[in-house]
């Protein structure tokens, strides 16, 4: 059995909180992160969002940190490149390499730090949404934001069948591994190609069966939406507003601050 983000989204401490509020909180924090000119506010957002995800939503800390490692490793790499490539100021580190003058200068270092902090803060906000809000409620929220229903309906079905195909892909893969389909690099590539083509055919067939199933139940172009989940209480809204105000204040006050 796979353990997917979706499983956590469906069963966490903040599952019943208003999806509108969670989405708004996450998105607003992200905007604060990218518009802050110092790393302080993004780091504050990263810390608080992580605490909310782990303590309030009760997502296991180990899983959460492993999830964060993925984007963080990308961010570290790009920050390193930026640090070397950018800016002026006094050199902090110098690496003479084959006659090239590789150096991290002050401006470059600051920019790299900002980049890292923004990515970190943004990812924590995104994970806050992803780990606390199930897709089905995001669909309902999209509907209330007047997104065309055909787009929402398509995405709902795509969402539903992702799991059916994930399951099939996993089964095909095990069947291949059982017969040593991944023994050598060459056969692994072949197996993957086969898996992809079989999966394509199966999804085609599944599509035909889907039409059949919908016809059997008198499909007339309508798909019922889930009822809107809990509304946010006044206290929750107030708390969210206070949090966002605090984060923006930090962003404004620290606009000229530097960590170096």
């Amino acid at each position, binding site marked *: 059995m796979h353990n997917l983000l979706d499983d956590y989204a469906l069963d966490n401490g903040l599952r019943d909180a208003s999806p509108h509020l969670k989405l708004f909180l996450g998105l607003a924090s992200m905007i604060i992160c990218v518009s802050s000119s110092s790393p302080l506010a993004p780091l504050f957002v990263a810390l608080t969002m992580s605490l909310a995800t782990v303590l309030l939503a009760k997502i296991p800390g180990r899983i959460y940190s492993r999830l964060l490692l993925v984007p963080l490793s990308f961010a570290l790499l790009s920050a390193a490149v930026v640090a070397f490539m950018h800016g002026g100021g006094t050199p902090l580190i110098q690496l003479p390499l084959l006659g090239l003058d590789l150096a991290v200068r002050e401006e470059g270092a600051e920019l790299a730090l900002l980049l890292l902090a923004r990515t970190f803060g943004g990812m924590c906000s995104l994970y806050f949404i992803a780990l606390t809000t199930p897709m*089905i409620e995001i669909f309902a929220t999209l509907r209330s934001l007047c997104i065309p229903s055909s787009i929402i309906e398509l995405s*709902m079905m795509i969402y*539903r069948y992702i*799991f059916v195909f994930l399951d099939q892909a996993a089964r095909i893969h095990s069947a291949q591994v059982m017969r040593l389909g991944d023994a050598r690099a060459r056969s692994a590539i072949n197996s993957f190609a086969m898996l992809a083509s079989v999966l394509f055919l199966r999804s085609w067939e599944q599509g035909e069966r889907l039409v059949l199933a919908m016809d*059997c139940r008198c499909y007339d*172009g309508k*798909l*019922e939406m889930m009822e809107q989940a809990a509304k946010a209480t006044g206290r929750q809204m107030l708390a969210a507003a206070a949090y966002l105000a605090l984060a923006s204040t930090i962003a404004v006050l620290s606009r000229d601050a530097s960590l170096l």
Partner: protein
Amino acid sequence: MAMTAIIEIRDLSYSYGDGTLALKDINISLEEGCKVALVGPNGAGKSTLMLMINGILRPTSGVVLFAGQPLQYDAASLRAVRRAVGMVFQNSDDQLFAPTVYQDVAFGPTNLGYPAEKVKRYVGFALQYVGLTGYERRPPHHLSGGEKKRVAIAGILAMEPQVMILDEPTSNLDPASSEEIMEMLDELNQGGKTMIISTHDVDLAYRWADEIILMKDGELVRRGCGPDVFMDGNLLREARLKPPLVVDIYQELASRGILSGSRPPRNILELCDLLQPEGRGRPLGKIYIWDVDGEDEVQVISMIDRMENCYKGAMGTGAKLLAERCGIHLDFTYGVIDKCILKALIGKDSLIMTSGGMVEHTMKRISDYSRESGADIEAVKIQRP
């Protein structure tokens, strides 16, 4: 007696696009309220035939009649027929396409154009019937196989069909789940719905169906009651089937002269009666029947405590859920009436908790048995205190 054929199939043939003949000259008429099993090996044409009945496939020649009217294949008539003839697919993942249980069950009613409030009521009713109240917001990939099948059935029930067609309803289900699903189908049939299932599980078909339609290579080979069809060894061999276990045992015992009688038993109860027709020296046990609809948990627990020495069984989804909530250990959850009669025959008392108006059915079943067998088993209806 004037019989109303709800579904009639006349001289129906069907060939696929490449000319392969899938069904040949099928003639069937089914009465309203019947309980039919289409039995046959893989590729016999069972599923194809089922898709003919609700107009998904159109016969190459011949006609399908619903309630005396030939099927029309324009959009409006098809909608009417598909609403009246609900189909449950073999693979629940084909059928459950909405991201939540609620949305899936609401799909049919919504497309029938019901107002939101009515949709909600129908979904609530259907989910309650299959025992999945509280599952509304769950996505189908978080359900077990049995739960998925229940949601699929609820999705059809919410459209109030007269006929339900189920393609291999128990494939891929564990034994307890499949017994529960079959019992639910029984309950629905008691409520007046015509039931058609396809299966290659001969034991299931034999025990459950009033009528067997045996198919092979796109043809209808035999139609009749269970014993007629399943006593014919040659026929079964040709159709790549085997006799049901009870029939097999009966035939072996009869050939050894241990059993006599012209009709094979339908189930274990009948087999036991054949083996021990009058050897009941001991006193018979009683069967208490209790309609638990509307009872609260406190009452149930106190009643169960008083009936400590009884075997306990529950029939119907409501009764089973109530028993689960009260933490009652149930001895029987399927085939309950038969099991309780078997216990009564060896002098043990039992209590049947029922729901959904199954009391009369249960009383009748026990009194029918008493009359036929001569064993006067007392069935006691427990009245609300």
